[in-house]
């Protein structure tokens, strides 16, 4: 999966769960400060990402993924190693 495909998929997830327009989900944005997404929504996003990308994001990893780019890179890296 390409970076662009993951970004687009993540945008759809964020829009569905947090009501943030997918177009606003750009790589440099932080979830908490820029997109106003709280920790529980992050858990829901991680769970949805697992369904969509087949990559598990445990709570211990999730707390380090501050920006959209972090998640895209994580999914890409885990997707390759899986």
């Amino acid at each position, binding site marked *: 999966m390409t970076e662009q495909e993951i970004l687009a998929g993540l945008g759809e997830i964020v829009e569905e769960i947090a009501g943030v327009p997918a177009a606003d989900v750009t790589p440099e944005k932080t979830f908490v400060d820029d997109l106003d997404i709280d920790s529980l929504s992050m*858990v*829901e996003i*991680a*769970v949805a990402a697992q369904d969509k990308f087949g990559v598990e994001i445990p*709570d211990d990893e999730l707390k380090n993924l501050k920006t959209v780019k972090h998640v895209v890179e994580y999914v890409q890296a885990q997707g390759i190693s899986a």
Partner: protein
Amino acid sequence: MSDSQPPAARGTEATDAADLVLPAGMPGARIVAFGHYQPAKVVTNHDLAESVDTTDEWIRSRVGIAERRIAGPEESVADMSVQAGGKALAAGGLSPDDVDLVIVATCTPESTIPNVSAGVAHRLGIRAPGAFDVNAACAGFCYALATASDAIRCGSARNALVIGAEKLSQWVDWSDRTTCIIFADGAGAAVVTAAATPGVGPVVWGSSGADADKIYIKDRHSYLVQEGQAVFRWATTALHPVAIEACRRAGVAPEELAAFVPHQANLRIVESIARRLKASNAVIADDIVTAGNTSAASIPLALSRMAERQQLPSGAPALILGFGAGLTYAAQVIKVP
């Protein structure tokens, strides 16, 4: 000892003995009435914001609670059980003499010995019923209801009073803003009787003891501890299949449900499970907004208050789903009385 004959091996002497006699049992059990009780004292989010670092907006957005009820210092789980149970009996038109089984689901009894249920039965004037407490935490009411239904179907009881009651306020650290904003006190009850057609569907229940450390009270001198994020993840991923399976086993499609009444743990968990259940025609219980999380009491409390507001059409199927510490979970479809 391993060389000695087990007692069963001597059973050849008893082959001519008559088979044990079992009662005929009943085709099903159904709920005929609900009752509930909430303590008088209302604690709002604004009240809590005065003593811990939190805000009304934060609590509403994270857990969905606006206010909760807290029992008085002298008010016990047994007191609340008596109130809720008495109302359910009166609403069902049953006299205490009709009841032969009393189950109280609670994880916050005042004492471990004696149990809550026998004393509650006595105070309600129910003479010598089978009486025991169930501790399956927030799943307790569904476990107790399944047990009562099966007891009636097997002929072990005719009429059961099933109560969920909790006084979580005495186990909460009121300086811990992660828990004191969530938990509350209250009681709900259901009267369950024999029925020609089942009004309590098959239970789907289970547990995950590997996750026992996610919600616990270490000992009688400790406060309740919860790993909120881990519990949230479990609740939003593991439970909708349980809910769907309970519908399947009862022969009711999710879109046929008139109500979905899950344990009132957190409004966001409720909404997440409801979304995945796709119960498109169901009223989704949001009793947590004004009742808080009352563990084993939350489902019968919500059912009773929803019935009082006429949100539950009589005879319609409703899905209940309990889940919590243990971890434990249980779900069944019921017919609204």
